[in-house]
C-alpha cells in the first residue's frame, strides 16, 4: 500500500515538476514578448515540414529565421508630411515657361511685324558664345530664352535683348535690356517723387519759421548741399533702355528703376558685392543713395557705357541736322542697311574696327552735360543758351566725353593694362571662326562678331578692374558747427591784476572826468562872476 502511495507521490512530483517546467517555458520574454514554449513548438513544426538535411547543423539558423518571420510590421500613426523638394518647386515654376500662352499668342506674333522682332534669338547667341568660350551652358540659356519670351509677351516691348548675368553672394541676377514701344511707356513714379519732395520742402519751411520765432534763434547752418544733378529723361542717355531682372528663369521679372546721376557718381566710388536681394541696403562710404536695385542699375549703366561695342559700320548716324561744325553730341544711331561684314581676322587684329555704340557717361553722371549754375528760370538745354553761358568766366566748364561711335583704339589704358583683349575662337578653322573681344576694365564683358552678327554680353560679378588695390574715399574734414563770431568765441576771463588795473584806470578816468566837470563848473561860475 505504501509503495503504491509512494509511486503516486513520485508521479505527482514528476507531473508537478513538468508543469513547472512548462510554466517556465511559457513565460514571455521581457524583450520580445515571445516565449520559449511557443518558439520551440514552431521550430519543431517547421522542422517536420521541411526536413532539411544535416538538421542539427542548421538548427540555429532555422531558429533565427523562425523568430524573424514573426515580426509584424505595425504602421505608425504618424504620416510623413508631403515634402516637396526644391527641384519640384522650381520645376513647377518653370513649367509655365514651357506651356504655350492663350489665344492671344498668334495675334501678337503678327502684330510685332516691325523690322526687328521683339524676341532675340537667344539660342543663336548661345551658340556663338559657346564658340567664343563664354556663356551659361545650353540648358540655362534655353530657360532664359523661354523666360525672355514670357517677358516679351507680358510687356509691350519693342526690342528686347539678353544683357547678361551678374553673380551675387546669395543668388544671381539675369538681366534683360528692353525698349518700350512708342507711346507705351508708363508714367513711372515720377509724380510720387515730386509730391514727396514738395512735402519735405514744406516741413523744412515750417521748421525754419518756428525757429525764427524763438527769441534767441539758433545759428543757421551755412551748409548748402551741392545742387542735385537732374536725372535724364527716359529714352535718353543713361536711361535709354529699361532693364528687367530675375533671379532664375521662371521667376517673375522685376523692373529696375531708372538711374540718377548721383547714384552713378556714388557707384564709381564704392566697391561692393551684390547679395542677390534687390531690397538690400548698401552700407558704404560715401553713402549710396538707394538700395541694391539702384546700385545694380547704376553698375549696369556703367558697364553698358564702357563695354557695349559693335563692328564699325554696323550703326551709322541719322541725317545731319544742321551745321557740321557745331559739336552736337549725337545720341542716336540707326542700323546701317548697307553694312557688309568685316572679315574676322581684321576684327581680331586691330581695335579700330570696333566702335562704342553707347554714350560715354560724363563725370557728372549723365551723358549730356547740364549746367548746374544756371538759374531756374533760365534753365534750358538748348544749344544757343549753353553757348552764351560758356562765355562767362565763372560758369563751369562743360564736360565733354568721347562722342558716339568712336573706335576702341582710342580707349584709355588703366593701370598699365590695355583695355581690351581680342581672341579668335579657333585657329584651326579660321574661315568660320568668331572674333571675340574681352574687356580688361570690366572683367566679364565679352563681345563677339561673326559676319554680320554680333552681340555683347556680360557675365561676371559687376565690378570694375581696380588695379592693385582699392582705396575707399576718406571722409571729409568735419565742419565747424557755428560760424565763429564775437558772440561765441571764447575769450580768457580777465585775471585779478587785469581787473584791478581796469578798475584803477576807470577810476582815474572818472576822477579826471569829475575834475573836468568841476573845472567847467568853476569856469561857468567864474564866467557868471
Amino acid at each position, binding site marked *: 500500500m505504501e509503495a503504491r502511495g509512494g509511486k503516486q507521490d513520485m508521479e505527482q512530483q514528476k507531473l508537478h515538476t513538468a508543469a513547472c517546467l512548462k510554466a517556465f517555458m511559457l513565460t514571455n520574454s521581457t524583450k520580445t514578448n515571445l516565449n520559449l514554449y511557443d518558439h520551440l513548438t514552431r521550430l519543431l513544426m517547421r522542422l517536420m515540414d521541411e526536413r532539411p538535411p544535416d538538421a542539427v547543423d542548421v538548427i540555429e539558423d532555422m531558429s533565427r529565421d523562425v523568430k524573424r518571420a514573426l515580426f509584424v510590421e505595425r504602421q505608425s500613426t504618424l504620416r510623413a508630411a508631403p515634402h516637396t523638394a*526644391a*527641384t519640384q518647386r*522650381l520645376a513647377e515654376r518653370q513649367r509655365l515657361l514651357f506651356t504655350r500662352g492663350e489665344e492671344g499668342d498668334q495675334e501678337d506674333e503678327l502684330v510685332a511685324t516691325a523690322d526687328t522682332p521683339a524676341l532675340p534669338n537667344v539660342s543663336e547667341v548661345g551658340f556663338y558664345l559657346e564658340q567664343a568660350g563664354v556663356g551659361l551652358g545650353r540648358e540655362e540659356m534655353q530657360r532664359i530664352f523661354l523666360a525672355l519670351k514670357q517677358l516679351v509677351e507680358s510687356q509691350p516691348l519693342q526690342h528686347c535683348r539678353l544683357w547678361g548675368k551678374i553673380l551675387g*553672394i*546669395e543668388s544671381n541676377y539675369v538681366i534683360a535690356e528692353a525698349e518700350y514701344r512708342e507711346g507705351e511707356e508708363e508714367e513711372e513714379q515720377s509724380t510720387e517723387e515730386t509730391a514727396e519732395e514738395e512735402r519735405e520742402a514744406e516741413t523744412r519751411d515750417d521748421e525754419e519759421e518756428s525757429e525764427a520765432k524763438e527769441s534767441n534763434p539758433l545759428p543757421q547752418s551755412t551748409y548748402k548741399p551741392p545742387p542735385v544733378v537732374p536725372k535724364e529723361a527716359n529714352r535718353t542717355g543713361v536711361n535709354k533702355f529699361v532693364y528687367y531682372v530675375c533671379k532664375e528663369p521662371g521667376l517673375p521679372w522685376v523692373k529696375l528703376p531708372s538711374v540718377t546721376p548721383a547714384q552713378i557718381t556714388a557707384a564709381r566710388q564704392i*566697391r*561692393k*558685392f551684390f547679395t542677390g536681394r534687390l531690397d538690400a541696403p548698401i552700407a558704404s562710404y560715401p553713402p549710396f543713395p538707394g538700395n541694391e536695385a539702384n546700385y545694380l542699375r547704376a553698375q549696369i549703366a556703367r558697364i553698358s557705357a564702357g563695354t557695349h561695342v559693335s563692328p564699325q559700320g554696323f550703326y551709322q548716324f541719322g541725317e545731319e541736322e544742321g551745321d557740321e561744325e557745331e559739336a552736337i553730341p549725337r545720341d542716336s544711331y540707326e542700323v546701317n542697311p548697307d553694312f557688309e561684314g568685316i572679315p574676322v581676322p581684321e576684327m581680331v587684329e586691330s581695335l579700330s574696327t570696333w566702335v562704342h555704340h553707347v554714350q560715354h557717361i560724363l563725370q557728372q553722371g549723365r551723358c549730356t552735360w547740364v549746367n548746374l549754375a544756371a538759374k531756374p528760370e533760365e534753365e534750358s538745354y538748348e544749344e544757343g543758351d549753353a553757348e552764351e553761358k560758356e562765355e562767362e568766366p565763372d560758369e563751369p566748364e562743360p564736360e565733354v566725353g568721347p562722342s558716339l561711335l568712336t573706335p576702341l583704339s582710342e580707349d584709355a589704358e588703366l593701370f598699365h593694362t590695355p583695355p581690351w*583683349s581680342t581672341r579668335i575662337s579657333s585657329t584651326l578653322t579660321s574661315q568660320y571662326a568668331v572674333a571675340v573681344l574681352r574687356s580688361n576694365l570690366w*572683367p566679364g564683358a565679352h563681345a563677339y562678331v561673326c559676319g554680320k552678327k554680333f552681340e555683347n554680353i556680360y557675365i561676371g560679378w559687376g565690378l570694375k578692374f581696380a588695379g592693385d588695390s582699392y582705396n575707399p574715399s576718406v571722409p571729409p574734414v568735419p565742419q565747424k558747427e557755428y560760424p565763429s563770431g564775437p558772440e561765441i568765441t571764447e575769450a580768457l576771463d580777465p585775471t585779478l591784476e587785469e581787473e584791478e588795473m581796469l578798475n584803477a584806470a576807470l577810476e582815474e578816468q572818472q576822477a579826471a572826468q569829475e575834475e573836468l566837470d568841476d573845472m567847467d563848473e568853476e569856469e561857468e561860475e567864474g564866467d557868471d562872476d
Partner: protein
Amino acid sequence: MLWGKIFGINADYFIVQGRGEDELKDKKNLYSFNCVDWFLLPPATDAMIEEVSKAAQGRFMGDPSFKYEHVETHRQGGEAEAAEEEDEVTIKVSEEERLVVTIHQIDREVSVVPRGAFIKSHGLIQTNRSFNGLSHSEAGKLHNFLHFTEPKNLKKKSILEMAYLDPSIDFLDPLSDDTPKGSWSLQFECGSNVCVLRSLLWLGLTFYHVPMAPQHGYIYMGDGTKNLDLPFML
C-alpha cells in the same frame, strides 16, 4: 584633372594638375596654350613665392618668358649726404614663376573638397571610395567643406570641438573658419540639384558638388589675381 584657366592679356593658359599616391602632397602642374602641347611647371619654393609677391603686379601677360621687374633700393649710410651708396636690387621674375606661385597660392587658399571625400590612412591621403555625397541639408552648411591643403588651424581647436570630429576624415580645415566671414558664396542651382561654392577671395574659383552623389570638383577660371579688397566689398 583640369585645374583651370588663367586669362592673360595676350593669351590664356590652360592648367592641368596631376595627382600622385598622396593626393595632397604629390601634385604636378602643367600648362598649355592649345591643350595639345604641355609644359611642366616646377614646384613652388619659398624663395620663389617671396620674389613673385614683390615683383609681379597687374594682369598676366600671356607670355611665359615675360619678365616682371621690381627695383628695390636700399639706402645705406644716412648722414647728411643722402642718396649715396644705394644698392639697387632688381628682382626679375618670369611669368612662368608667377604662374607656379599663383597656382600654389590658389590651391593652398581656396581649393575645396567635401567632408568625407578623402580619408587619411597610414599617413597617406586618398579618395574615399565609399563616399556617397553629402545630404542636402549638410551641403548647405559651410563647415562640411574642407580646405584641401595642409591644415593650419586643426591643433588650435578646443577639446570640445574635437569631440565631434573624426580623425580619419577631419584632418583638414573647414571653410567656416575662414576670415573674413562671408568670403564664400554658397548657392544651390538647378533646383538644389547642384551645390555651387564660389570663392570671393580669388574671383573665379568655383566648386561644385552634387548632393547624395560622390561627384565634386573645383576649377579656377579667372585672372589669377587675388581680391585684396574683399573686406570692403562685403
